[in-house]
Every structure is written in structure tokens, then in C-alpha cells.
């Protein structure tokens, strides 16, 4: 099997089995970002609380989750917990591991976003009679979200690739399926390149999505938008 095989490369480039794996990777990413962001938001708000009994657990959580490798966390969830009678399937273990891990990182991003909304905005919202929840919902969160889009985009890009770690616990995402196919014809270089191309396509597509989101949420802040209308 020496040399480069174009036929094998093109065959796998359009292989349905691999394409499915790529969709699984995409699904894992969307799930862990969406739920990680929700959990991360809760952790961020707890962390910013004046009450120690809220902020301390939040700090402890991020300390553990960011201080240990995702790989170790996944192995503990999938192969360690059954020892205590807690059993998860491969998919469940992957979703739980990715989401819990990502939530810790996203909570720090959310925290920075919330802290970046000027204090005067909070006062203005309180002054018209908003409850703390309404202040967050209508004034702070929308402004914080716009601020965190770029670092959030970084996270999405990162998670797209980090999902490959789940191949270790036999999660059938893109990398795992690539490795399975390698066992058939040993086209190592061709297959890994195909996998790399799939990852590149997904991260590139995300760049466009991110740019759209940034435009969507940046409209109110676009200096040109107003001038055209005003003059």
C-alpha cells in the first residue's frame, strides 16, 4: 500500500458513512454549546453573586472542570461511574462530558460579558422599575450577548474539533469513523486528510454563521447605518 491513492481519497471524500460521522460531530457541537451556554449562564450569575453559598460552588465547579482534561472526564463518566452503579451509554456520556466541560469555559466568557455592561445601564433599568430578573432579561443579557459573540465563536470552533476526543470512548463521530475505515484498506493518509477537510469545512461554515450573527446583533452599533438614514 505504498504511495498516494487518488481513487481512495475521492472515494472517501464522498463516503456516506464518513459524512454521517461529520453530522454526528456537528450535532455534538450544537448540543454542547447550546446546553453548555445555558448552564454556563447560570454558573456565571452564581459566580457573580454576593452570597458565598452561591459563588463558592460556582467557582469550585469551574476549578474542577477547567483543571482536569476532558479526556479524563469522559473516561470517568463512561468507564468509571458504572463501578458505582451509574451507567450511561456512549452517546449520553459524550453529551454529558462535553456539555459539563464546555459550561465551565463558557461561564467565564458569559461572566466577562455581563461585567462589561456598564453599571449605568443597570441603574437605568432599575430606575424604571424593573425587577432584577427583568434587568437581566431585557437590558444586561442582550448587551452581554453581543459582547461575547467573538469569544463564543472561538468556543464553537474549538468544540467542533474537541468532539474528536469522544472517539476514545468509541463515540462514532467523524474521527472514530475515519479510524474504522482505515482498518479496511489502510489508506491512512488519504482518510485522515479527508477527515481534516471535513473539519475544515465545518469550521469555515461556522465562520460565516458567526459573521452573520455579529451583523445581526451589531446593527444598533453600526455607525454607518444611522448616517445614511439621518442625512
Amino acid at each position, binding site marked *: 500500500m505504498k504511495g498516494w491513492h487518488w481513487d481512495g481519497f475521492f472515494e472517501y471524500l464522498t463516503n456516506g458513512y464518513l459524512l454521517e460521522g461529520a453530522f454526528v460531530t456537528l450535532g455534538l457541537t450544537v448540543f454542547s454549546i447550546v446546553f453548555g451556554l445555558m448552564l454556563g449562564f447560570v454558573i456565571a450569575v452564581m459566580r457573580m453573586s454576593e452570597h458565598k453559598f452561591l459563588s463558592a460552588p460556582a467557582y469550585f465547579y469551574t476549578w474542577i472542570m477547567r483543571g482536569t482534561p476532558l479526556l479524563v472526564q469522559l473516561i470517568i463518566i463512561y468507564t468509571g461511574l458504572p463501578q458505582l452503579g451509574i451507567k450511561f451509554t456512549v452517546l449520553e456520556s459524550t453529551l454529558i462530558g462535553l456539555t459539563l466541560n464546555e459550561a465551565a469555559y463558557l461561564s467565564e466568557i458569559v461572566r466577562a460579558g455581563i461585567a462589561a455592561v456598564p453599571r449605568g445601564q443597570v441603574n*437605568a433599568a*432599575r*430606575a*424604571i*422599575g424593573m425587577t432584577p430578573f427583568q434587568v437581566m432579561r431585557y437590558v444586561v443579557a442582550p448587551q452581554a450577548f*453581543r459582547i461575547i459573540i467573538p469569544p463564543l465563536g472561538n468556543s464553537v470552533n474549538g468544540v467542533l474539533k474537541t468532539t474528536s476526543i469522544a472517539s476514545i470512548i468509541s463515540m462514532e463521530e467523524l474521527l472514530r469513523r475515519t479510524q474504522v475505515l482505515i482498518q479496511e484498506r489502510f489508506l491512512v493518509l488519504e482518510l485522515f486528510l479527508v477527515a481534516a477537510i471535513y473539519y475544515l469545512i465545518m469550521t469555515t461554515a461556522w465562520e460565516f454563521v458567526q459573521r452573520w450573527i455579529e451583523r445581526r446583533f451589531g446593527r*444598533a452599533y453600526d455607525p454607518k*447605518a444611522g*448616517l445614511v438614514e439621518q442625512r
Partner: protein
Amino acid sequence: MTHPTPTDAAPMLDIRAVNKHYGAFQVLKQCSVAVKAGEVVVVCGPSGSGKSTLIKCVNALEPVDDGEIRIDGQLVTDGKADLPRLRSRVGMVFQHFELFPHMTVLENLCVGQEKVLKRGREEARKKADMLLARVGMAAHAGKYPMHLSGGQQQRIAIARALAMDPIAMLFDEPTSALDPEMITEVLDVMVALAQEGMTMMVVTHEMGFARKVANRVVFMDRGEIVEDTPTQMFFDAPKSDRAKLFLSKILSH
């Protein structure tokens, strides 16, 4: 033009013996001010005198250490007060406008009406349109704050506060962040409001405004209320040396 005579009823805003510290530093010392319905009270004093802190205590944006503050007879300064409800009854205008940048002008005027007062969309919109017309901003309803001048933003901020049908208005240095040519347009709106009988407490250095519409001037220095006198008397014959010094500094040009 003088302001309509205030009633003798209990004060609309009542600040009694308020003390407040930032760490070891005392920003407010035994401050007491009462603003009756229909009254306009201007609070002035050198920077760092505590006037901005005092006005923020009225609707509990800043907590006090001790003392009592009442809005329309209702206590603000006990832990059990329904602060969102009390705040919704008092409008506040800030030095830096603080319009919500992610909302259009119209949304800025409607969000409090809809979410806090639970008014319907149509009703809120009608009220907003009416107030925008009143502050001369009707043509700008669909714009975002960042596309407007400081003077325009502040007029909208006043309209946003009025949209809540407040029983009194607090102004915290409303013209201090404005370019000189925009101060008049904001003061015009405030003067009109005062002449319509709105109860107002105004922290400002605009002595022309004070002369024109204020019933009383409260002069603060180093956390203390040094004078609380009828407007005419404050300008003609200030009692304290500190007020004389302050007036000589800001009226010398």
C-alpha cells in the same frame, strides 16, 4: 415666571437624617430634604459634595446606612420595601443618558411601560409617540441611540422616564455631559415640565435654570446640606460662606 404654589400636603419626596459611608469615608451626613408635590428643588454644590449620591438614594439605587426616605409616604429605606414598584413611580434622568443602546428610541420608551406597567403594545406606543412629539423627537422613533446627538438622547431619556407616568422626577446632572450648544434644548424640556407642575429634584450647576423654575435651592458641601433656602434668597443673600464662595466661582463669568 414663577412656579405654581406647592400644596401643604405631606412631601412627595422626603429624605430624613440620612447617613452613608463608602468604607471609612462619609459621603452623606445627616441629610434631610423634603420636596412637596409640584415643587422644584435644585441641589447644587462642589464636586464630591455628595449631591449625586443623595439623589440616587431617593429611589434606592444607592443604599443608605441609616435615616429614612419616603416616596409619597411610602418608606424606601426598610428592607421590605417593594423597590421595583416604588422606583417605577419616580422617573430618573442620568448624566450619561443611559438609553438602552440595543433598542430603538421607540423600544426604549415602551419597554418599561410593557414589562413593568404591563401596558398593551398599542397603548405603550401611543404614549411613546405622544411623548416623543412633546420633546421634539417624533421623527427619530426608529433610530438607535448611538445615531443621535447627546442632546437628543437626553430628551429621549426624559421622555422614557415620563412614559411611566411618574409622580416625581429626579435629574442627576442632566446637562453635565452635553456639549454647550445642546444644553438649552434639554433645559427647555425641563423648564416646560416644571411649569406644568411636575415635582422635580434636580442636581445641576445650571444656575439659570434654578433661578427660572426652582422653588428652593439646596446647597451641599462635603456630604452636608449647608443651605436649603428659597431660590431668590439663595442667590441674593446666601447665608453660609461656603455657598458664597461656590456662587462666586460659578457665577463669575
